[in-house]
């Protein structure tokens, strides 16, 4: 285990640690839970091997269900939650949620949260001295449709500083929380915007050490999704990992 130095590391030191680990897990999608360049991971990951459960009838191969009572009409439009319009670049983000066999994940819950256009979260622990926006909270949810599609209207979040190292900045991102057919398919992740110059310097994105896997966290700008005189469109498809009981498909 890497012991962090008592003074905060510089960006150059973090860059070097990132470079040493880059490509070290070819083909593996998920980040290692212990990834020293992301300092907060050092004490928050197990050191014992995970115990493999091989039970085709495990409880975890099923999962919670959600329905129309769990979301309200405006929940997928983060720009209409207050009396006024939020500041920033209005965007629509849409895509499909699929399982690894390519089947749509239908009627399941997608939750998002994000910073405002200035890079500030509506959260008391966010001490970044960027302005709060009284017309933007930054949380939304929706159910996937019959083709596994989700859609949100929001504003493009700003990048923001954090204290992993000196001059650490997170690339702009939207947090996503997803449910599949099974509890084993649960996913919490972050969607990034194409071409962000902060990608290479961010230990959270770079914790995914496989370039192809990292690229799957970046949405595509899609001009066909842009609405004339209204919003810019981004497309981001999500593939949930993990096994699921096949029988559950029939009943839902």
């Amino acid at each position, binding site marked *: 285990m890497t012991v962090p130095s008592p003074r905060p590391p510089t960006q150059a030191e973090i860059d070097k640690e990132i470079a040493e680990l880059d490509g070290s897990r070819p083909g593996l999608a*998920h980040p290692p839970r212990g990834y020293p360049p*992301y300092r907060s991971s*050092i004490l928050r990951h197990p050191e014992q091997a995970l*115990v493999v459960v091989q039970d085709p009838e495990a409880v975890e191969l099923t999962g919670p269900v959600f329905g129309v009572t769990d979301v309200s009409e405006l929940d997928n439009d983060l720009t209409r939650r207050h009396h006024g319009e939020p500041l920033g670049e209005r965007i629509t983000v849409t895509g499909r949620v699929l399982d690894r066999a390519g089947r749509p994940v239908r009627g399941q819950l997608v939750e998002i949260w994000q*910073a405002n256009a200035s890079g500030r979260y509506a959260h008391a622990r966010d001490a970044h001295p960027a302005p709060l926006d009284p017309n933007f909270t930054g949380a939304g949810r929706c159910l996937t449709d019959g083709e596994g599609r989700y859609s949100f209207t929001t504003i493009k979040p700003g990048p923001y500083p954090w204290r992993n190292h000196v001059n650490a900045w997170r690339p702009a991102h939207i*947090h996503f929380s997803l449910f599949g057919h099974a509890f084993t398919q649960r996913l919490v992740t972050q969607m990034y915007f194409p071409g962000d110059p902060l990608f290479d310097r961010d230990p959270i994105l770079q914790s995914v050490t496989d370039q192809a896997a990292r690229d799957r966290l970046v949405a595509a700008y899609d001009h066909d999704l842009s609405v004339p005189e209204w919003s810019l469109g981004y497309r981001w498809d999500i593939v949930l990992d993990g096994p699921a009981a096949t029988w559950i498909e029939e009943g839902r």
Partner: protein
Amino acid sequence: MEPTRLQPTPSQTVGPFYGYALPFRGGGDLAAAGDPDAIIVRGTVYDGAGAPVPDALVEVWQAAPDGSLRGAPGSMRRDPVAGEAIGRTGIDFTGFARAATDADGHWHVRTLPPAPHRPGALPHLAVCVFARGLLHHLYTRIHLPEHAAALDAAPQFAALPPERRATLLAAAERPGVYRFDIRLQGGAGEETVFLDFA
């Protein structure tokens, strides 16, 4: 024929700022208010230095008291007029709970004792843990003390040393209240056993 295998979307940490998005009113109250069978399962999430983790999120999925794993919608029921979370109806058992840790790392859920989902199954609460600093969520299981002998006899945990297996067992604090601490990192006898379903 081998089905298509799409490459999965990678996990990323839940970060520190999910607090206004993911927790919801009554999120930990799986049991209806006043249900005489309700139990409380509570604990603290600790890091590898033994410090409580104030920014973790604990989710529970479990069988209904009749053993059903079908679940029910309505865990996050919304008022269709104002859009506010208004809690479960208390009529159907949704099977799903979500509890954020408090400033002292403590979480709790109020639920009904899990039932076997098939004859002979070992009843448990399935748990998924998220936290700032945790890049990929972790699964574990909570077994109640009355199933301690069955847990010891369970084939899938037979290879574990007894002190590791014991981390999957809640302790009775008083009637109806059980303690289950989650240690994200620690020695072999301390760190919670986490599960992989791959």
